[in-house]
């Protein structure tokens, strides 16, 4: 195979290509569904109906999308600095722990204040959990991919210990904490809308979605409008050039990875402070890993990440409905589809480049003639 064809127009490049890649992933997923003895088109119909068919479904879709915005941004910020943060899972768990501690610390006396402290707590603990792998990467050259994965396992065990030990609901049997104090939680959208007199079916979609959008905006600002963002991107593209230009690459690495950890940590806001209102074990459910797909599908641009996150929200919510309706389809199949989307949209972005470029060339040529 020779060189990748010349540049395509931006519209084709950043919208059509990812879309085609998703279609390929869905096609292969359809083959799996077909192999299980079910009708793939019927399944696709159920999936879309389950994601958009009614108000509650839409709420859930955006609720899941919120998780993916956080984890996608987390992967992306690290990637711009030239690193792979696969520790989103662990950082989210620690973020969940941070916000839980904040809520129990202040929730009884000042619920509203505790929410603000909880947001900070989630970010701080997530960043803290990313610090050790970040420091090891920057100062000792330890492979960040492996250290962050190890930190995922360690975080999971730590949370498991806390939830059957010191943090367990008194008298409880499940690995979960006591309920958060009254008022210590993020408002859900249907409550907000009801306040303005609009009725919307109940769903767990909550204010974290807005926090996630703000985070996306902040990341965009950081990357394209600040000096540090520029240093980050230079260090990510060419570390020795950055060092030569006077950028302290280790410092940039550590700060970028800690910001990445903070974003991953804030995922807990949506799950715990928006819906569960208690700390539960393994609430991260692989969202941290999906962040890799979201970041790559969104071409590591904040706007792209928000769109990709919504697509994954559709997959998640629609998939859950699908698993409910089709007995042979389990939640595991959704994991397969995720894997396929990561493979086609994330790892093989140029799969269909050649035919698309050829077609475009033909049409563009005809237009000119």
């Amino acid at each position, binding site marked *: 195979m020779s060189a990748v064809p010349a540049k395509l127009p931006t519209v084709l490049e950043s919208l059509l290509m990812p879309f085609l890649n998703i279609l390929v992933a869905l096609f292969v997923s359809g083959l799996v569904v077909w192999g299980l003895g079910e009708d793939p088109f019927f399944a696709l119909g159920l999936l879309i109906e389950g994601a958009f068919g009614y108000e509650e479904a839409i709420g859930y879709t955006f609720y899941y999308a919120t998780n993916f915005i956080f984890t996608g941004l987390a992967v992306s910020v690290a990637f711009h600095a030239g690193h792979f943060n696969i520790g989103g899972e662990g950082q989210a768990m620690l973020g969940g722990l941070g916000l839980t501690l904040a809520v129990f610390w202040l929730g009884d006396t000042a619920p509203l204040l505790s929410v603000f402290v909880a947001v900070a707590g989630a970010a701080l603990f997530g960043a803290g959990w990313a610090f050790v792998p970040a420091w090891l990467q920057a100062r000792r050259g330890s492979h960040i991919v492996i250290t962050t994965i190890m930190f995922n396992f360690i975080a999971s065990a730590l949370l498991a210990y806390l939830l059957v030990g010191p943090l367990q609901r008194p008298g409880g049997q499940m690995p979960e904490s006591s309920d958060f104090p009254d008022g210590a939680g993020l408002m859900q959208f249907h409550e907000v809308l009801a306040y303005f007199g609009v009725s919307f079916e109940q769903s767990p979609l909550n204010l974290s979605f807005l926090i996630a959008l703000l985070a996306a905006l902040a990341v965009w600002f950081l990357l394209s409008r600040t000096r540090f963002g520029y240093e980050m991107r230079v260090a990510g593209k060419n570390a020795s050039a950055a060092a030569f230009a006077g950028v302290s690459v280790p410092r940039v690495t550590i700060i970028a990875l800690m910001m990445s950890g903070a974003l991953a940590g804030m995922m807990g806001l949506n799950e715990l402070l928006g819906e569960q209102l208690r700390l539960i074990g393994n609430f991260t459910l692989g969202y941290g890993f999906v962040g890799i797909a979201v970041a790559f599908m969104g071409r590591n641009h904040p706007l792209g990440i928000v769109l990709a996150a919504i697509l994954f929200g559709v997959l998640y919510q629609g998939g859950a409905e699908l698993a409910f309706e089709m007995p042979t389809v389990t939640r595991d199949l959704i994991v397969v589809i995720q894997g396929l989307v990561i493979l086609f949209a994330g*790892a093989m972005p140029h799969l269909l480049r050649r035919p698309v470029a050829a077609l475009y060339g033909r049409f563009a040529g005809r237009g000119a003639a």
Partner: protein
Amino acid sequence: MEFLTDILLLSDSAIRIAAPLILAALAGLCAERAGIVDIGLEGKMLAAAFAAASAAAITGSPWAGLLSGILVSVMLALLHGYVSINQRGNQIVSGMAINIMVAGLAPTLANAWFSRGGQTPLLDSEARFNEITLPLADLLQDVPLVGAVYSNLLSGHSFLTYLAFLMVPVVGWILYRTRFGLRLRAVGENPEAVDTAGISVTLLRYQAMIIAGILCGMSGSALSTALGAGFIRDMSAGKGFLALAAMIFGKWKPVPTLLACLLFAFVDALQGRLQGVSLPLIGEIPVQFTIMLPYVLTVVILAGFVGKMEAPKASGIPYEKDR
């Protein structure tokens, strides 16, 4: 004396636990020496474990299991090869995609085929690789020291365990004593030079991926047909990543990698042993903390307390012929 018996027992289980780690680490080594980072070891192991357990359950033969495990693992390795070599995609993303895909696909298929909640049926003794008693082991049982080491420690492991240890010199021989091995190492260090010499970078890298696939297939089969008796959801439990860490710790060389795997396995055996045991001064360690031990050890080792680690130079970088 009791202490010595303890050490002996721990070493015995360490050897058992080490087998899949060694095979996976060697797989990672072959891939990375040829310039392809294979973070998908975990997924290949899990897929092979599932394929081996399924085939063994259906045919009743562990050999059919091993063959299926290898076949599936090689197919995934070729997929990773296609992404890394032809598509020049991001190898970390591809590996993670394979890991995630398999984590979902294996239980889905297990459910569809066996309807046992994502597991395969428990394998009978004939459908597994059983313990092999080495020659003279019974005779030497009562000889002091020799008996303890030979009859208790070295004898009584499965075929796949012996195979794993055998693969270390085999891989070493291929890499350092054959022309193919020299080219394979060259393609991981300086693919341009290999290309200039008129040797196909693509072909070499695919060959390396096939070797990695075979080794990883053995590793996964060991999990479900030798160590365990069937496939359980997520049974690889991060071993693919531990194997990668062992490979880095072993500086991409077969024998040091073997030693690193043995160290990890020993710690793993130790954590199993420490569960529920009350230690002097510390008391009983909660099980969640003993589970952390191998992972913490990995981080400590990677923290570079063992000197500088130099990866093959072209590792992870797609080769573009006409650059």
